[in-house]
């Protein structure tokens, strides 16, 4: 026990050297600890933000971009897709639930997400203040949005086009805050939620005087300039219920934030007609969560036993044959045909699978047979983590090297002071300490420096994580929990400390007391 204390006081007696060794250990260790923490936090954070979304359907382009823009709300959207086409997917038998998203605007850097209430509820169903939005141009704020902008229930604001803090302002369309979410430690904290209709309404109007040129925005949405959709004058139903906003109806272009002209050309020709259907879907934003209601209705109406038995099979998670699938799809096709095309566009549709079979079938089906793209959040984010991983690996290698250098530093320190220390070691031996004890004394010094460096490393990594601005999105950073990997780091550092102290310790072990003392006396 006294050897431990002695080792400790030896370290304290040479503060300069000790601090240098400690610092080197701490710097190397903190980089590793920081990377481990960041890795863990990012993975956890991403997992939380995936919210069990199985598939994202959006415009063709980079699948990673689609996931980043529509799930993590980080990148720019790939483009737009037809609401009606997306809805058809929502009615696919393998789909349990679907949520449409319309993006494109922001308020002071916070993205405004057009989506039914079920979307924010994926992340956080606790309204801290106020209530959920019901009508167009009503919003619910994420917790951080409210904190940082100072907006509260009852306040109003207008969004800007694009995702930057400044941009073209939609000054004609005032959003009203209906509620604020509780803190949820996920992406919802930094988003503003509004019905999909709000986004349509804002951008329909926008198109009337589409004279601004947001270069930055256009860059990501190459087709922003081609809004040649003719006169798709088909929103009377929707706008009819939005009192006081009818003035936009007459010359509307049904233009959404990021329209793809390809789609516009393909499908808009037949769109000028569906007031009745529209009224139905648009009355309630929740209706956009299409849960195969149409199919159930069909069953009642027609009594089609085959379809209902297929439906039953799907519900029970049984396999269905190819014929049954085709029959069912044909039915769904026919069924949605009746609903007609709204001509509306959304940015992405989030799909939730009914059965595991969908993992294989749906992405293929969508990518091969539609003009849209389907991307799996899990797969894409794994890809992203692998890309990031390379940089992490280099940094990690550097950190291991720094730790080895700190080991060398300890080695040189102990060895260079060993001559000086020899007299003390001889004294300890004379006082009754065995060779093994003086061996331990040196070894413990290496261990103590490593332990101190490790603690410094943990502290540094947590401090830097909370202070560095770029990492503010990582929640719960300053946790006192030590991760499993950090215990391995401790083992590595202690091993380095022991190896560094080993040769000096062996020299101390082999000290010839007689020789050291006589040399000392005869000097």
């Amino acid at each position: 026990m006294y050897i431990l204390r002695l080792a400790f006081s030896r370290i304290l007696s040479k503060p300069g050297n000790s601090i240098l060794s400690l610092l080197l250990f701490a710097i190397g260790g903190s980089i590793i600890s920081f990377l481990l923490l960041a890795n863990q936090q990012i993975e956890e954070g991403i997992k939380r933000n995936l919210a069990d979304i199985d598939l994202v359907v959006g415009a063709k382009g980079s699948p990673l971009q689609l996931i980043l823009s529509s799930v993590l709300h980080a990148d720019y959207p790939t483009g737009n897709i037809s609401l009606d086409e997306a809805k058809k997917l929502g009615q696919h038998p393998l789909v349990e639930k679907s949520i449409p998203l319309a993006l494109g605007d922001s308020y002071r850097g916070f993205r405004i997400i057009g989506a039914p209430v079920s979307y924010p509820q994926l992340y956080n169903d606790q309204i801290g203040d106020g209530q959920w939005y019901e009508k167009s141009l009503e919003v619910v704020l994420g917790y951080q949005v409210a904190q940082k902008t100072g907006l509260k229930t009852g306040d109003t604001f207008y969004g800007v086009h694009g995702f930057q803090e400044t941009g073209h302002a939609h000054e004609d369309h005032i959003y009203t805050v209906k509620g604020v979410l509780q803190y949820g430690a996920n992406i919802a904290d930094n988003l503003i939620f509004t019905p999909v209709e709000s986004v349509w309404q804002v951008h329909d109007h926008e198109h009337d005087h589409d004279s601004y040129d947001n270069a930055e925005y256009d860059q990501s949405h190459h087709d922003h300039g081609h809004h040649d959709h003719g006169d798709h004058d088909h929103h009377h139903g929707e706008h009819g219920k939005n009192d006081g906003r009818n003035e936009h109806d007459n010359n509307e272009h049904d233009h959404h934030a990021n329209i793809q002209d390809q789609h516009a050309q393909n499908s808009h020709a037949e769109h000028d007609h569906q007031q009745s259907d529209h009224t139905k879907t648009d009355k309630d934003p929740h209706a956009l969560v299409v849960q195969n209601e149409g199919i159930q209705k069909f069953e009642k109406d027609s009594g089609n036993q085959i379809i209902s038995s297929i439906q039953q099979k799907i519900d029970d998670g049984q396999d269905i044959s190819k014929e049954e699938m085709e029959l069912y799809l044909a039915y769904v096709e026919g069924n949605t045909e009746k609903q007609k095309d709204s001509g509306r566009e959304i940015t992405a549709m989030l799909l939730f699978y009914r059965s595991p079979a969908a993992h294989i079938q749906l992405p293929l089906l969508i990518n091969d047979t539609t003009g849209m793209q389907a991307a799996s959040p899990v797969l894409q984010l794994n890809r992203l983590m692998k890309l990031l991983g390379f940089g992490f690996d280099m940094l990690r290698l550097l950190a291991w090297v720094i730790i080895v250098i700190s080991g060398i530093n300890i080695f040189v320190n102990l060895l260079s002071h060993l001559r000086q220390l020899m007299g003390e070691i001889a004294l300890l031996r004379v006082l009754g300490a065995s060779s093994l004890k003086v061996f331990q004394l040196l070894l413990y010094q290496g261990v103590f420096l490593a332990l101190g460096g490790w603690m410094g490393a943990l502290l540094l990594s947590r401090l830097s994580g909370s202070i560095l601005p770029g990492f503010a999105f990582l929640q719960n950073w300053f946790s006192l929990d030590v991760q499993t990997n950090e215990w391995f780091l401790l083992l590595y550092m202690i091993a380095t400390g022991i190896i560094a102290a080993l040769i000096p310790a062996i020299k101390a072990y082999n000290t010839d007391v007689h020789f050291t003392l006589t040399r000392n006396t005869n000097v």
Partner: protein
Amino acid sequence: MANNFSINNLTYRYPGNKYLEFSDFSCENGQRMLISGSSGSGKTTLLHLLAGILQPHTGMIMAGETRLDLLSSSGRDLFRGKHIGMIFQKHLFLSGMSIYQNLVVAQKISGKKIPKKLHYLDEILVKLEIDALRNKKPEQLSEGEQQRFSIARALANQPDWVLADEPTSSLDDNNCEKFIAAIDKVGKDIGWIIATHDRRLKQYLAKIYSL
């Protein structure tokens, strides 16, 4: 009789086949013995053999009831820690620690348990008149003070014998007298074996062993 120190037919072989032979002696409990001889005559070697730092080639070393020459290296370390204190010509100490901490460490290393409530170390510090310096670092002391501190450390484990190697050769007459006075004061019941060529000490020591 239990604490006699004696050697019998003792020889030591240096690396390189140089032999040293020591004539027998027996030093009784509480007796003071001076080992005299010129430089290089083997005073320090004998002292280190007695302390168990060196292992004899042949012969017997009896320390009390213990055959020191038969003990293993670590056995001799243990024995030394419990029963022997040493003083050197050159002052050795653990740097970065106060006088008192040095004494505490010495006591701890010895493995001997001396209850703190006996205030044994305090008593020694007072007797040696270095109590006021207890929180100073050894390197801050004067030559004489350092030598008295060396005595204090040699006594920290309540030894049966103190072996001193040229303890006074760097001291002036005044400090030399003080050294003798000090061992009179604190080392009455202890056997002192002092290897020196310092003639000043001869008058104070009852027994002289010449090499």
